[in-house]
């Protein structure tokens, strides 16, 4: 009995819990929403399916978008009333901050959600893989002299990024694969508590290792000169290329991942493994390799998040990933654990709650608000935001 978890949660969860698990697996199978799965060839939509998908998404969610714009305007007016001279500008500025922060949470959250979707494990070491990637990035930048290269001009910057991203993502991906091989694979058919405990163990191991190697203080990454130029100012809100870079990398990688899972053989193998591991095995899918690839991709995305984080904030610390990981995990749960689109959405939502909560209620409440929202969501919609939608469809 390889897949006892699917037959019912331990502790007598019964058929309800079982169907919940089935549906969370289905989320990974069908990350629909942003890009349509079934393409209907009609005119221009055929040539640029992504744009068409965005248009469809925007028109389909028009009430939600309208609501969002109204809410942001109300926040701006409210801030004005609170004694801020430029309430709307402040709102716009915080929206920018929320997007930048949310992009990083989203990238990390996807790693949690992918692993959960395929083997129902909360990979507590994921946040520490994020931290380790930050240190890999410092190592690689020093090794190849990338800091000097990137400061040299736009060409040098692009070259430096083209070296840094693949190399560090490869290193982190391998780290993730090794963690899976060493700490989780042998426990795959054990009770679910066992791999959970090894996950915490791996997390502690990585943190301890980084503490002894890098020391307790913030380690500067020396990337202040990488992206410095200001892009544009809109309504008093200054946006730098660094902000655009962070959000663009996150969105780009998320779309690439969506395309990979939908369009490739490995992606199909991942979907079928998530849906029913035993059946996938019977169909000749190499389960071990598929799970390894899942860990590789999740960790590589965490590495991308770490790189943009260290370009944006210019430092890394041995335990940075612990708290960031917990918040990103919250984002994954908020969006519907196992659902990749949900993780992305959850990341941006958590970023918004963090920033706007900090602005409206007070910075000391930011983290408390995140978890308060989580409690409310789990109480009234246990499968997360996008979970319900896909459940009805499935």
């Amino acid at each position: 009995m390889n897949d006892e978890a699917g037959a019912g949660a331990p502790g007598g969860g019964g058929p309800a819990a079982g169907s919940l698990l089935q549906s969370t697996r289905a989320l990974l199978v069908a990350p629909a929403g942003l890009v349509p799965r079934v393409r209907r060839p009609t005119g221009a939509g055929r040539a640029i399916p992504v744009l068409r998908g965005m248009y469809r998404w925007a028109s389909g969610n028009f009430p939600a978008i309208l609501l969002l714009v109204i809410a942001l305007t109300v926040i701006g007016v409210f801030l004005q009333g609170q004694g801020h001279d430029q309430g709307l500008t402040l709102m716009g500025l915080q929206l920018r901050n929320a997007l930048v922060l949310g992009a990083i949470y989203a990238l990390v959250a996807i790693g949690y959600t992918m692993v959960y979707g395929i083997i129902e494990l909360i990979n507590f070491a994921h946040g520490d893989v994020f931290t380790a990637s930050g240190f890999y990035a410092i190592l690689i930048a020093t090794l190849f002299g990338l800091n000097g290269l990137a400061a040299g001009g736009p060409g040098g910057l692009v070259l430096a990024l083209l070296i840094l991203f693949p190399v560090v993502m490869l290193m982190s991906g391998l780290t993730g694969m090794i963690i899976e091989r060493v700490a989780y694979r042998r426990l795959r058919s054990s009770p679910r508590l066992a791999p959970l405990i090894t996950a915490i163990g791996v997390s502690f191991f990585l943190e301890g290792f980084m503490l002894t190697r890098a020391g307790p203080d913030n380690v500067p990454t020396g990337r202040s000169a990488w992206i410095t130029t200001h892009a544009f100012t809109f309504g008093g809100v200054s946006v730098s290329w660094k902000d655009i870079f962070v959000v663009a990398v996150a969105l780009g990688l998320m779309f690439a991942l969506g395309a990979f899972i939908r369009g490739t053989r490995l992606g199909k193998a991942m979907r079928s493994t998530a849906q029913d591991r035993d059946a996938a095995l019977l169909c000749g899918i190499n389960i071990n390799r598929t799970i390894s690839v899942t860990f590789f991709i999740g960790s590589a995305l965490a590495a991308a998040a770490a790189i943009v984080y260290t370009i944006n904030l210019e430092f890394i610390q041995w335990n940075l990933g612990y708290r960031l990981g917990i918040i990103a995990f919250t984002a994954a749960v908020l969006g519907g654990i196992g659902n990749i689109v949900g993780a992305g959405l959850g990341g941006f939502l958590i970023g918004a709650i963090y920033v706007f909560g900090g602005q409206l209620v007070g910075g000391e409440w930011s983290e408390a608000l995140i978890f308060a929202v989580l409690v409310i969501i789990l109480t009234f919609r246990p499968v997360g935001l996008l979970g319900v939608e896909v459940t009805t469809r499935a």
Partner: protein
Amino acid sequence: MYKPKAGALSVAGIASLAVLSACGTTGGGGPTSGGGGALGSCRGTITVATDLPLTGGDATDGPFPAYGAQLAVTQANDHHTLGGCRLKYVSKDDSSVAQNGHDPAQGAANITALAADSSVIGVVGPFNSSVALTEIPIASQNHLPLISPANTNPGLTQPGTNPAIDTNALYKGVHSYFRVIATDTDQAEILAYVATKELSATKAFLFDDQQTYGKGLRLLFQKFYTQDGGTVVGSPASLPSSTKTFSTQLGEASTDGAKLVFFGGTTGNGCGLVRGQMAAAGLTVPFLGGDGCEDTKFLTDAGANANGAEATSAPDVTKLASAATFYSDYAAAYSNLTAPYNDGKKEPYTAYGYDAMNILIKAIKAALINNHAKVPADIMTFRDDVITQLHSVSYDGAIGHTTFDTNGDTTNTGFTLYQVQSGAWATKETLAVDTSGNVSVKS
């Protein structure tokens, strides 16, 4: 003549017997004694003590002022400062294994024991404000002078400055607590002066790290800054020490037109990070912090944006001319100690411990002279005499000129303003506050 009771003798131990035997032979003042001659007929041994954290996590701080105080006692005996009377030094450790460092309960036990010892006339200590909270009531009830070399929390002496401390309730007996280090009230007044007069910042955005020191300093700064005509924009950000991203608050600061960013707290809780992230938020205004910010970690965390940041910190006494003799005496007296304890300059509070003990000895001497070179038979009378002398003491020592105000706080209230220049902290100027709260530049 003062005869120690049997109980006191047993505490005094062998060292004091040796001192007693030497006592009769050397009658009047020694060669370098300044006025010991008036006490030539004085007989007896007077015990002075230190109560400082010496072990555990505080082993890198506490022993330095203890060695400084011990040096003051040794020198007083060598120079026959008290004429025919001798001083005995007792060292207490307020660390406990349970706390791995200073422990308010251990401090209370130490002070209770010292107060019960009728040969003990005064104590230099404690090091930590939390320990002072448990020690002051005991010392106050037993009329035992307590001179701290390092407590900066204003709530210990100034009612209403710390919401968590009922200052008046600490003093159930006489006001026997003094300190030779300036308080965070003075530091905040100096910071407000720098903000409004030197940086001409009319609007400021304030941060703190939610902790006793950081939030206390921020609240005091806010009070004085507003008094001096400054305006606080937005709402002060009181953030947990785990905060790494300050873009929300810095965004608020920039849209509200802040001309200054202030941080009350330590670099471990984000002082340098705030400075480092100001540029990305479009804030090119000055940055000001307290003594928790002035360290090398700030330079690492703020990176390329560190330059221009300013912070106040305790005066650098190691560079004072008045301290030069002390540091060479310390090095000579403790050359046999292992590093770092053989170098008094490794810890700024070394000289504060030395001066605190010298001030106590000066008060004892004045009390003895007033009592015609006789040690009062009743220890409570003697302690009261010393407290009276301490309230009017005027002493020029290693850390400068010290007198105490009615609260027992030092009037030597200098703080040095440092600025990051070319990636390193450089001394800008030293400022002081007078008793009516006026700040002036000393050097």
